[in-house]
């Protein structure tokens, strides 16, 4: 365990000792803020219109459903763009600079190295999410959103980020080149995103597995504030599978030399 933490700490530190962490967190916060303001403005206009039609309409406006839920959906798109930048260097950089030789000749198991890297990247994601809660905190100052659905949405974001990191780690372990890793990761993420499109014009036999595979379909319920074990299991098994592929890739690299 201390080995995993040592690697995780090293990973997190390396994000912050290069501009990566600051750019990624800063841009994420900026775009999150933009989405927040845009959706908030829309929400405020809607509620004004509602109140013109009478008190009942205003009552029906729900801040969780009409502000936080669309906001979270938009944030998932941000994840799509941000995560490749976080994961692309994890293995590629070590392979390019030769530091992978240090890790692989130290008394560490592959599992410890992979978990360390995964947790390091996940920690950066948690920091990004924490930064974004500033906006939510302001919301609490002026309204009374329900806390539990909000926490659920953040749990969903955390798991979604975890999926992306595990795939990103795998892809980064395949190449020495960061750009190749980043671009491939982005393409794979995007594909997992739009995989449902195939389903929309095919028969039910294609639609249902494809809908299940789509990484984003599973986020919907989290956005609504519902914790469905199906989705939790989907995300956790997705992460496990990504890490498993990484382990296989690192091991096969060793055999191929």
């Amino acid at each position, binding site marked *: 365990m201390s080995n995993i933490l040592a690697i995780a700490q090293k990973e997190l530190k390396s994000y912050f000792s290069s501009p990566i962490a600051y750019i990624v967190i800063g841009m994420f916060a900026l775009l999150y803020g933009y989405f927040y303001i845009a959706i908030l403005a829309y929400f405020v206009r809607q509620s004004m219109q509602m109140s013109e039609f009478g008190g009942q309409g205003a009552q029906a406006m729900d801040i969780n459903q009409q502000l936080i839920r669309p906001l979270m959906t938009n944030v998932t798109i941000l994840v799509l763009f941000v995560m490749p930048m976080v994961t692309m260097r994890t293995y590629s950089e070590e392979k390019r*600079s030769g530091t992978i030789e240090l890790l692989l000749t*130290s008394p560490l198991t592959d599992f410890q190295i992979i978990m360390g890297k995964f947790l390091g990247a996940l920690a950066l994601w948690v920091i990004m999410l924490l930064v974004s809660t500033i906006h939510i905190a302001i919301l609490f100052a002026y309204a009374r959103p329900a806390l539990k659905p909000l926490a659920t949405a953040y749990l969903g974001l955390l798991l979604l980020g975890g999926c992306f990191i595990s795939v990103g780690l795998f892809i980064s372990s395949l190449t020495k080149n960061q750009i190749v890793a980043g671009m491939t990761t982005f393409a794979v993420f995007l594909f997992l995103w739009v995989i449902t499109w195939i389903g929309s014009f095919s028969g039910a036999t294609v639609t249902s597995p494809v809908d299940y595979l789509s990484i984003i379909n599973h986020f919907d319920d989290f956005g609504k504030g519902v914790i469905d074990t199906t989705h939790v299991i989907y995300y956790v098994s997705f992460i496990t599978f990504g890490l498993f592929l990484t382990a296989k890739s690192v091991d096969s690299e*060793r*055999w191929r*030399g």
Partner: protein
Amino acid sequence: MIEVQHLTKRYGRVTAVEDVSFRVERGEIFGFLGPNGAGKTTTMRILTGFIPATEGKAIVAGFDVFDQPIEAKRRTGYLPETPPLYPDMSVVEYLEFVAKIKGVPAAGRRQRIQTVMERTRIDDMANRLCSKLSKGYRQRVGLAQAIVHNPDVLILDEPTAGLDPKQIIETRELIKELAGDHTIILSTHILPEVSQTCQRVVIINKGHVVALDTPDNLTARLRGSETMYLQVDTNGLDALGALEGVAGVTRVAESDRRDGLVGYEIESQHGRDVRRDLARTVVTNGWGLLEMRPMRMSLEDIFLSLTTEETATPVPAPLEGEPVHE
């Protein structure tokens, strides 16, 4: 301490190392000599557990590197060809990280890092970023990294490559100092390095072991017969016959002739010292003895004759380009 048995490594169809076996005893400095691409790095990578062998076995500090990699790695320090430094870490941060993953206990970790930095003379750069270090310092930080967990075995892949002469001497001294506590394998393609630092040498070429012995024995063995260079002033007379008559001399060849001074190469039986008899012969004939010295085959020659495919022994070049025979 280190035992390698019939090690073979193939990458697809390419065989990098084939049937390499050797043993290294505790406290020894063992040299790994070979031209670039001979399989030195591959062998070292197998020993450190970075890559597995296709066939054969490697035991380091009593543990099989394939079956018990963690135990073997715990007892091994490794300096790859390029020191594996993290550019955004300071030297101290880097060594702390390495100490952690190598299993140096938290209590006494700082003390150990301090000791190692002093030993490798990098303590003045403790807070410098690794990316800002000069080549010599990078190499020394690499060495510090390899010894931070006080391993039984040290594996150094070309530790002096790319250093300036002063740094090379310092690094060699440091390696010799470390030999007491650690068993060291070092690879190099620089020959004097081996004769200066190593107690035993293995020469490998194209993945095969071509020789394994002490540097002195290697030199002697390949020399086979002893060769002397003798320069005499015979006033124009031919000394060849007289020299051939000396007991123990097997062959005499004229190597150069200038202003009445003649140089001869004299081969004699192995282990037989013919210098006194040669000198007496020259003096009793009334010639002037100007020069007499042993012509040793340098490690360089041995290396070349072992690693070049043509088995022809290197022919000594005529001195100053003068024609040997008129």
